[in-house]
């Protein structure tokens, strides 16, 4: 029954609650005597705070407390955990002090009896500013003479430099038959989960402990960060991630509201709730992606890319948030993707600008890297007259070349050593799935009819399942039912189902006998969280290892109950049975009851309870890979880009639940598509963002999504005891490369060269078409 459960598309344990309205997101939490917080945010992109007047707001009905930067002056800044030793620690304060550096920066908070009163009073807080010059353009910000220094004490807006050096790129360029250069511009957009952020800070627990309910991807890290900022031990803090309505990296950051709500709640002795508004979300939650990549490629006469150099800039916004250098680090470490390119140099700058802080979003730096590499590959192929698939094959690492030490490193995660995979095989499979040759033929016909159609292909390798470790705790009680406590903190990925599959298979019990709990630091003592495509693979491995230990212990207990040597006992269908003696067996429930505290210690055991903990320490990064093919058509009259068809072959090692993995791939593709074709956070010259909500930040709807054909390969990784890699982000990473490639391909006959990621909105595409017409006429 439970054997063979792993690898099957069982339906999710999570769904019943979510479908019946019984889920509990942070905004659903109501506590006795709860108050409500509104945040007063900077309306200026860069200014000195001359004065803050709160008297009128304090006098408004229902207002209990107002806090400004002065009130939390003594609290440390929010940590950035991926700073390099020589980084400039441009850290975000809990509330602005003396200066504001972006529109949306929290300046004050108002706590009142209800949210309407808090928001009304927030309008009455008067802040007097003296404007300072803003710095929005990435190249200007990084230059020696920037229009403004966000932190004059550092003398530069460059907060961090990440370098990679492999082989001898100078020699390769000196001997190159061809050199290609391109500067790729990648725009700013955002994760925009459907649930905004929110907190409920409750100071009323026994002994004055703080409970912080927060919509986060990593409650245990929030506990540590909060303890650090407040200067209190972690044991005084309980952090709960309730049901979380999507995160995609934006909730893998530690935010000022998670601190200031606690400060206010402790002052008032009452719970304080804050739920981010959607407009607020677009200035208060981290943005993503914005980079400029100046890339050069050295190519020999046969189309072999011998070297690449990269100078990249990341617009980190006004402060280094929790994972601020990661986008630059990943995009530079992973730029070469599946291609050999033996010589490589990168210098990637994390640059401060007068914008909302920018950090990780699904794929972190991978989508940017794949976009640049694959557009470059297409350009080399075109200019040298080599078929683009053939060019990729010539440069691609083969299965026999793995493992391959790439000579680069990713901050926090470690050395880049590709572990397993069949990159050319994956490309072959996706071309077959897409019907590539047929599509090429039809593209030629469509072009002959004057249609603007393009095909894009993207191959990539992606860091997944990073460490350092994850925890799993498996407990069988006297009912025979199994509870798993996991350090992962899923928010839509179905990780509870995946873990239940692994544990049920190990113990050979019905999958529905397993309950998985997560997200509450008082229930799960230790954990790391859900990000970087690590939940299923890492937490799953930890849980299964713990289940394996439980099974071993159960056999020892059974040997006493059955009066048989442990070696004569086999585990079948969730029972311990004596080999060759039918009918002589004990159930998991009987075994668990024998080990309880009201019995004597079972013979040969050193501890009570059928209860085991495992840590899965990750020995290294495991690298997933995939190949994506997209077909697009551009409407000449409206500039609308439609993705007509999509095929993907994805390899993330052993698959626990193919239905869930496919769902991750679909969702990822939608986000990649949105980022390329629809989504953008632009700023005006004064540094004001031009986005106020979903009415002007367009997410893809069902209508924009193509049919998606998905194929899987399973190259197990030796770095995980069960061969599993991560699957959460690849859809996005591949879609960015494939759709950008398709748009670029569509525009080639019109003489438009695409060097960036758009976004290819109808007006932007119309502008490209108009420029092409003008160029042709000139």
């Amino acid at each position, binding site marked *: 029954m439970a054997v063979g459960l792993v690898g099957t*598309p069982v*339906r*999710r344990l*999570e*769904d*019943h*609650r*979510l*479908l*019946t*309205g*019984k*889920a*509990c*997101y942070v*905004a*659903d939490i*109501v506590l006795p005597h709860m108050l409500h917080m509104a945040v007063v945010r900077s309306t200026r992109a860069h200014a000195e705070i001359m004065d803050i007047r709160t008297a009128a707001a304090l006098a408004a009905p*229902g207002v209990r407390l107002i806090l400004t930067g002065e009130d939390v002056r003594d609290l440390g800044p929010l940590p950035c955990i991926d700073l390099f030793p020589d980084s400039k620690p441009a850290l975000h304060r809990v509330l602005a002090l003396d200066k504001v550096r972006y529109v949306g920066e929290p300046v004050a908070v108002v706590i009142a009896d209800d949210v*309407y*009163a808090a928001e009304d009073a927030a309008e009455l807080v008067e802040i007097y500013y003296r404007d300072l010059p803003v710095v929005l353009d990435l190249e200007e910000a990084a230059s020696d003479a920037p229009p403004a220094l966000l932190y004059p004490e550092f003398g530069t807006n460059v907060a961090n430099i990440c370098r990679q050096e492999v082989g001898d790129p100078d020699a390769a360029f000196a001997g190159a038959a061809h050199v290609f250069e391109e500067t790729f511009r990648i725009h700013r957009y955002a*994760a*925009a*989960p*459907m*649930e*905004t952020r929110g907190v409920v800070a409750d100071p009323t627990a026994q002994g004055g402990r703080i409970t912080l309910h927060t919509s986060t991807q990593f409650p245990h890290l929030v506990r540590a960060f909060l303890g650090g900022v407040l200067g209190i031990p972690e044991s005084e803090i309980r952090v709960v991630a309730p*049901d*979380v*309505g*999507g995160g*995609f990296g934006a909730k893998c950051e530690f935010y000022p509201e998670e601190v200031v709500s606690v400060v206010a709640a402790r002052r008032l002795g009452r719970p304080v709730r804050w739920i981010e*508004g*959607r*407009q607020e979300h677009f200035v208060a939650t981290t943005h993503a992606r914005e980079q400029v990549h100046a890339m050069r490629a050295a190519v020999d006469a046969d189309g072999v890319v011998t070297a690449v150099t990269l100078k990249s800039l990341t617009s980190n916004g006004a402060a280094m948030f929790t994972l601020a250098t990661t986008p630059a680090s990943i995009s530079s470490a992973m730029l070469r993707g599946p291609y050999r390119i033996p010589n490589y140099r990168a210098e990637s700058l994390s640059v401060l600008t007068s914008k909302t802080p920018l950090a990780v979003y699904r794929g972190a730096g991978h989508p940017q890297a794949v976009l640049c590499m694959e557009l470059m590959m297409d350009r080399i192929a075109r200019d040298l007259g080599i078929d683009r698939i053939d060019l990729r094959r010539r440069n691609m690492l083969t299965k026999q070349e793995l493992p391959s030490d790439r000579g680069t490193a990713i901050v926090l995660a470690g050395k880049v050593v590709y572990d397993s995979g069949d990159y050319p095989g994956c490309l072959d499979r996706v071309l077959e799935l897409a019907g590539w040759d047929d599509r090429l033929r039809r593209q030629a016909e469509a072009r002959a009819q004057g249609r603007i159609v393009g095909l894009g292909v993207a191959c990539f390798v992606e860091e997944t399942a990073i460490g350092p470790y994850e925890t799993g705790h498996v407990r069988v009680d006297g009912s025979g039912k199994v509870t798993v406590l996991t350090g992962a903190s899923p*928010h*839509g*990925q*179905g990780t509870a189902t995946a873990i239940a599959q692994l544990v049920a298979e190990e113990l050979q019990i019905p999958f529905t006998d397993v309950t998985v709990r997560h997200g509450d630091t008082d229930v799960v003592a230790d954990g790391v969280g859900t990000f970087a495509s690590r939940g299923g693979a890492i937490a799953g491995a930890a849980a299964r290892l713990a289940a394996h230990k439980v099974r071993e212990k159960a056999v020892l207990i059974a040997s006493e109950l059955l009066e048989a040597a442990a070696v004569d006992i086999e585990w079948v269908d969730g029972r311990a049975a004596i080999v060759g003696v039918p009918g002589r067996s004990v159930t998991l429930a009987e075994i668990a009851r024998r080990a309880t505290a009201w019995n004597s210690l079972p013979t040969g055991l050193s501890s009570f309870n059928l209860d085991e903990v495992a840590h899965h320490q990750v020995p290294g990064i495991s690298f997933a890979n995939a190949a994506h093919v997209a077909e697009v058509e551009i409407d000449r009259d409206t500039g609308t880009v439609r993705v007509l068809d999509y095929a993907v072959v994805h390899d993330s090692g052993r698959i626990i639940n193919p*239905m*869930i993995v496919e*769902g991750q791939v*679909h*969702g*990822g*593709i*939608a*986000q990649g598509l949105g980022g390329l074709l629809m989504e953008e956070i632009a700023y005006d010259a004064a540094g004001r963002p031009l986005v106020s*909500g*979903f*009415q002007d930040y367009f*997410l*893809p*709807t*069902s*209508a924009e*999504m193509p*049919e*998606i054909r998905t194929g899987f390969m399973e190259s197990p990784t030796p770095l995980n005891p069960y061969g599993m890699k991560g699957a959460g982000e690849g*859809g996005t990473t591949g879609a960015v490369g494939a759709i950008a490639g398709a748009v670029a391909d569509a525009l080639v006959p019109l003489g438009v060269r695409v060097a960036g990621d758009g976004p290819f909105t109808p007006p932007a595409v119309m502008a490209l078409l108009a420029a092409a017409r003008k160029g042709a006429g000139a």
Partner: protein
Amino acid sequence: MSRDTREITVTVNGAPKRLTVPVRLLLSDLLRDVLGLTGTHVGCGQGPCGSCTVLADGGTVRSCLMLAVQADGMEIETIEGVAAGDGALHRIQEAFREHHALQCGFCTPGIVMATVGLLRRSPHPSADERAELMEGHLCRCTGYRNIDAALAALAGEG
């Protein structure tokens, strides 16, 4: 909140209620904060996302755009009223589960409610009718293909 209040009568999931509500209270806040029906979610509070969709006299409405006082005399249906009393899923919910049409579940109640409304009006909705329904709902997790598959199955095309 402003002290200005009105008395209203609404039927929520079949239960009649007489309530005194502030005039500026939103229907979504009435459902969530006053009646504790937190299955109706607010993803934007601005109208575009559809996560707050409920049925009012059988028609779909955005509860974040409607005042509680406007619901006076109406029959409101929310996600909490969809499954059977014993917890057995409604066939719409079952189809969503079967087709993996939800991930984080935040957008889901709104889409399910809109589907309840659609299937009542049109038991075998055409592809166009289904597409029209989905124009009004954002989901950031699923990429929609599985939602569309669930809707197709419900229309008898699965």
